[in-house]
C-alpha cells in the first residue's frame, strides 16, 4: 500500500503543476471569452527568467520565483494592452490566429536568445531527494510543489471570496454585461486578472523546470495539458481547475502504474469521458 500512496502523491504533485499552469487561462477564458493560446508562452517566460537569474546572476532558486511571477504578469499586461484588447469583440478564430502567431514568435525569440538546448536548473539541496513520512517516500520537491500550489489556491479563493476586487472578478465572470451595468470597469478588472493569471503561469513555468525541463518548445508542448485541465475543470472556475488538475495528474500516474500499456491513452480517455459526462466541465456553469 505504501508505494501506491507515494505514486498517487506524485500524481497529485504533477497535477498541482498543471493547476498553476492553467488556472489563469481558465479564469480569463471564463471572463472575457478570450482564447489565449499564448498562455504557455508566458509560463515559458517565467521559466527562462528563473534560469537566467540562477545561472547568470547566481540568485537562490526561491528568490527567483516571485520575479518569474512578476515578469510574466508584466509582460502579459503589455500584450493585453497593445494587442489582445483589440480583439475582444472579434471572433474566436481570429483570437486563435493572433495568439498562435504570438506563441510562434515567442518560441523563435526563446530559441534565438537561449538556444534550443535544455536549460539546466539545479534546485537547492534541501529541495532534492526524498523524505520518509510514516513509511511513505515522498519527493521533497514534490512536497514543495504541493505546498506552493495549495497556498496559491488558498490565497486565490480567499481573495476571490473576501475582497472587493474578488467580487468584481466574480461578477465579471458571471455576467459581463451586468457587471458593466453595475459600474465595474470590466476592462481594468480583466487586465489585472489577466496579469495575475499569466503571472501564475510564469510561476508554474519556473516550478516546472525541475520536473519537466525547459526548452523553447515548452510554449506548445504543455498547451494540450493546459487545455485539458481548463476544459475538464470548467471555464472561470478555480475550484474546477484544481479538481481537474488533481484528477488528471492522479489518474495519469495511477494509470501508468497499474496499466502501463494504457499509459499514453489514459489521460485522453479520462478527458473524453469526463467531457461527455459534463460538457461544461466539472465546475462549469455554461
Amino acid at each position, binding site marked *: 500500500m505504501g508505494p501506491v500512496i507515494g505514486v498517487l502523491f506524485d*500524481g497529485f504533485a504533477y497535477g498541482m503543476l498543471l493547476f498553476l499552469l492553467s488556472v489563469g487561462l481558465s479564469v480569463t477564458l471564463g471572463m472575457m471569452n478570450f482564447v489565449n493560446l499564448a498562455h504557455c508562452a508566458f509560463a515559458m517566460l517565467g521559466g527562462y527568467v528563473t534560469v537566467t537569474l540562477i545561472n547568470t546572476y547566481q540568485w537562490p532558486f526561491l528568490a527567483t520565483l516571485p520575479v518569474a511571477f512578476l515578469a510574466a504578469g508584466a509582460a502579459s499586461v503589455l500584450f493585453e494592452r497593445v494587442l489582445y484588447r483589440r480583439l475582444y469583440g472579434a471572433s474566436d478564430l481570429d483570437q486563435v490566429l493572433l495568439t498562435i502567431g504570438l506563441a510562434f514568435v515567442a518560441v523563435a525569440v526563446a530559441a534565438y536568445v537561449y538556444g534550443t538546448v*535544455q536549460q539546466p536548473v539545479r534546485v537547492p539541496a534541501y529541495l532534492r531527494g526524498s523524505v520518509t513520512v510514516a513509511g511513505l517516500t515522498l519527493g521533497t520537491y514534490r512536497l514543495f510543489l504541493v505546498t506552493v500550489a495549495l497556498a496559491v489556491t488558498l490565497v486565490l479563493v480567499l481573495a476571490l471570496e473576501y475582497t472587493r476586487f474578488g467580487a468584481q472578478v466574480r461578477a465579471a465572470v458571471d455576467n459581463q454585461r451586468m457587471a458593466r451595468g453595475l459600474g465595474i470597469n470590466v476592462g481594468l478588472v480583466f487586465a489585472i486578472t489577466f496579469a495575475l493569471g499569466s503571472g501564475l503561469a510564469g510561476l508554474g513555468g519556473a516550478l516546472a523546470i525541475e*520536473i519537466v525541463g525547459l526548452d523553447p518548445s515548452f510554449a506548445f508542448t504543455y498547451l494540450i495539458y493546459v487545455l485539458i485541465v481548463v476544459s475538464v475543470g470548467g471555464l472561470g472556475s478555480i475550484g474546477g481547475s484544481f479538481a481537474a488538475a488533481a484528477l488528471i495528474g492522479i489518474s495519469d500516474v495511477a494509470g501508468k502504474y497499474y496499466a502501463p500499456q494504457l499509459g499514453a491513452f489514459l489521460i485522453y480517455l479520462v478527458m473524453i469521458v469526463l467531457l461527455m459526462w459534463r460538457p461544461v466541465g466539472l465546475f462549469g456553469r455554461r
Partner: protein
Amino acid sequence: MRKTLIGLAALAAAALAAPAANAQGTIKIGVILPYSGQFADTGIQLDNGIKLYMKEHGDMVAGKKIEIIRKDVGGIAPDVAKRLAQELIVRDKVDILAGFALTPNALAAGDVSAEAKKFMVVMNAATSIITTKSPYMARTSLTTPQLNETFGAWAATKGGVKKLYTMVSDFGPGHDAEQAFQRGFKDAGGEIVGSVRFPVANPDFSAFVQRAKDLNPEGIYVWIPGGAQPAAIQKALAERGMDSSKIKIFGQGELTIEDALKSTGDTAVGTITVFHYDPNHDSALNRAFVKGMNEMANRNPDIFSVGGYDGMHLIYEALKKTNGNADGEALITAAKGMKWESPRGPVAIDPETRDIIQTVYIRRVEKVDGNLVNVEFDKVENVKDPVKARMKTN
C-alpha cells in the same frame, strides 16, 4: 481574390529568382535537419559539427567549392523530408544529401537518393535498416543495436548483474534498443525480470520507476531519447530511492548526457552507460574538437555534433578520392571501406553495409573536480551493426 493572385505571383516570382544553375566548380550539399520544434537542438548540434568541420578544413575540396543548403524538416515528417530532398535535387541541384537526425525522415529521403542516384550521408538517425534504402547511402553515427546488443552482453558478463528490469520509450528506437539489449543480455546468460515501455511524451516517470522497484531487480536498464527526459527520469529514480548508490542503473548514453547531469545532482554517480562518443573522451583529436566547438558555438559537442563532423569528413575524403567527381556511384565507392581517426576514436565505413564500424565505450558517471562526468572504463572495439550481420548469415 484578384489581389491574392497578384500577391502570389509576386511571391512566386521572387522565389524563382533564387538559385542559379550549378556553377562549374561548386559542389552543393543539401542538409535536411530539424532546425525547429521538439528536435531542434539535435539538428542544431549536428549542424554545429558540420560548421566546425568546414571552419577547420575550409570550403574547397579537390578544387571544388563546397556549398551547404540547409532545410528545416520541423520534426518527424517523412513526407516533408522526402519533398525537401526532391526539391534540393530538382530545384537547388544539389549533388549530395546529408543530415537526417530522425529515422522516418532518413528512410523517406533514402528513396530519393536511390532514384536520383545521389550520395547521401546519414549523420544521426540510428535505426538499423536505414542504409538498406539506398545503395548510395552511408552512415556516420551509430545503429541502436550496435551499442545496445554489445552493452547487453557486457552487462551480463562484466556488469555483474543477472536479473534486470528494462524501461524504454514506447516508440521505434526504444523498441529497437529494448530488443537489442535484451538479446545481448539473455544470450550472455542474463534474465529479464520485467520490462515496461513509457509513452514518448511522458513528463512524469514516478509510476514507472515504482513498478520497477516493486519487482526488486538487481538493476535497471533505461533507454530514453534526449531532451528533458534524462534529467526527469534520474530525478524520479532518486525520489523513489532507486538511485545508483542502491541499485545498478544501465542505459544508453542519453541517460547521462551533460545537460542532464547538470541538473540531476550526485544521485547520478555510478550510473553505467554505453555510447560511442563523449566530450570527455581522452584523445588529442577530441580535445581539439571540444576546444574548437567551444570557440565556435560556446558549448560542448555531443554525439550529434560528432556525427555531423565525421559525416563532413567522409564527404570531403570521398571527394578527394574521386577528384571532385560528385557522382553518387563514384562517391559511395570511394566511401566504402574508408577508415579514419575521429574525435570518438578509430572509425570505418563497412564496405558491405555502408554503416559505421566503431568502438563502443562503457562509461560510469563519476565526480571529477566537482563536476559529474562520464568516465570511460571499458570498451569493445570494431563493432559492426549486428542486425545486418545476421541478415547476411541468414
